[in-house]
């Protein structure tokens, strides 16, 4: 991934109206200035209907901006001849894997994108086996995708994207249907590629525990970017989160309740370990 620009995705005054929407004064997204660096893991949170999915679709040229622009590795998504390139570099994982599984066996499904790129068979075989291994799908390669469980389908969808070796991956609630182990497998695999190969990640999630592991959390509300920063700050701004119908992590919520009961606990608690450590070292010392 050498020679790739430092900025994976950049938006300038980005706005989008869905055609035919009756209320022209409330665009789906509006005035978004955001850049995602190579190797950065950004999580995108916000209430249902705040524009998160629309923003992802704008990032990989499934939608074209009504106003402003999106640059993927410096290339505008409105340049039609570059759209294939953009979509290869910027892989999208949809909320429901049923919407992106196309082949009759798992291995053919994972290979689908690679075959479209006309890669040589041995290379396709190598990549399919590698991602199948990374996502624990080896034993399912010959199975038809429609008979897999929700979690297995989710991993097949992700494998098909990762096999393309994109520089950026866009995930729209990829774990909504997964059990806790599959969630860790899938997010762990993405995180590893993010750390080791500089894969940029934009992860839309409704789970504060997942957002807590990002490098940066961005909050959308009514199509506008209203807050961003490190997870420890953004996810502890409980007043704002609650106002939007969102929540902090269970540990940050519990820490806040205990603070009102007079416990002295630092502001930047995100997970169970941090909370327990803080409690044991001060209030509950025995």
């Amino acid at each position, binding site marked *: 991934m050498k020679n790739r620009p430092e900025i994976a995705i950049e938006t300038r005054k980005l706005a989008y109206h869905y055609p035919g929407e009756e209320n022209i004064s409330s665009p789906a997204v509006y005035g978004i200035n955001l850049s995602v660096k190579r190797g950065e893991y950004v999580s995108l949170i916000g209430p*249902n209907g705040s524009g998160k999915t629309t923003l992802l679709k704008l990032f990989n040229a499934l939608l074209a901006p009504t106003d402003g622009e999106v640059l993927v590795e410096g290339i505008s998504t409105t340049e039609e001849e570059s759209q294939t390139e953009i979509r290869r570099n910027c892989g999208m994982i949809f909320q429901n894997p049923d919407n992106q599984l196309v082949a009759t066996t798992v291995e053919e499904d994972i290979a689908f994108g690679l075959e479209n790129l006309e890669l040589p068979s041995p290379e396709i075989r190598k990549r399919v086996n590698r991602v199948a291994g990374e996502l624990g799908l080896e034993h399912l390669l010959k199975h038809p995708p429609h008979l897999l469980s929700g979690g297995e389908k989710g991993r097949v969808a992700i494998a098909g994207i990762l096999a393309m070796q994109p520089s950026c991956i866009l995930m729209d609630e990829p774990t909504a249907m997964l*059990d*806790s182990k*599959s969630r860790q497998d899938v997010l762990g695999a993405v995180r590893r590629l993010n750390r080791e190969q500089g894969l940029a990640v934009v992860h839309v999630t*409704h789970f504060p525990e997942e957002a807590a592991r990002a490098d940066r959390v961005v909050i959308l509300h009514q199509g506008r970017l209203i807050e961003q920063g490190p997870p420890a700050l953004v996810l502890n701004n409980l007043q704002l989160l609650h106002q939007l*119908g*969102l929540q902090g992590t269970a540990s940050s919520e519990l820490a806040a309740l205990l603070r009102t009961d007079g416990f002295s606990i630092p502001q930047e608690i995100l997970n169970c370990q941090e909370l327990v450590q803080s409690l044991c070292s001060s209030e509950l010392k025995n």
Partner: protein
Amino acid sequence: MFIGTEKLSHIYMPGTPYATKALEEVSFSLDRGDFALLIGPSGSGKSTLIQHLNGLLKPSGGKVIFEDRELGSDSVDLLALRKRIGLVFQMAEEHFFSETVYDEVAFAPRNLGLDEVKVEQNVKLALERVGLEWEVVHDRHPFQLSSGQKRLVALAAVLSLQPEVLILDEPTAGLDPGGRLHLFALLKSLNQQAGLTVLVCTHHMDEVADLADSVLVLNRGKVIMSGPAHDIFARRQEFNKLGLSLPEVTEVMHCLAAAGLPARTDIYSLEQARAEINSLKRRLEK
């Protein structure tokens, strides 16, 4: 027995190389008015099991029992059964096909041949029970609603038959935290006030663990734990081994106990955790 199974087995694609044993001798029962959770790793057979409970799938072996009678294959019997046992699929709103919320919710009662006056009564009642305002929504296109509202319409479409048992497959997948809390509060009131028997199949325990009376855990198509919620949740190590997780606040309490503090670990909600940590502090100060 109110509802349950006896040695229920199911094989997908029997007699082919892809034959998969999805359920193996599954026995369980629920009492009228129970709030039960069905959990297990992805692929453990949860969705297969619930599709047997209202006759969408037929057993390869064993029986499904409702009010002490085995479900027969007689189609009249099944129609009556599906009226009494409502099933809400994963992402049910993706199957919407009507032009208005009214028609969507009215589909099932109309199918049963009720006259339009009775249908309208049922639709009004169902929308009211899920907290959607008739005046605001009944004329709207379902796709114009927010994700949270669409999910409520899907639930109303099942409640329109006034079932006694409500079975939900991942009912909060894709909902924001506010939407999740709202939906679970609604299920709680349907269970406690209206006396519906509720079975929820989910991977996300945080909001729902506190509501459950009983828990059934499947793994590889077999029942590996079943019983009162408190007994099952106490088996944390077995849970973790299966790749399942308990609510994060329960983990906090276990971590405090592991640090040598005399903390209770049968804690499943924020408020319970808050009360126990306050009480623990007082106990330690004595």
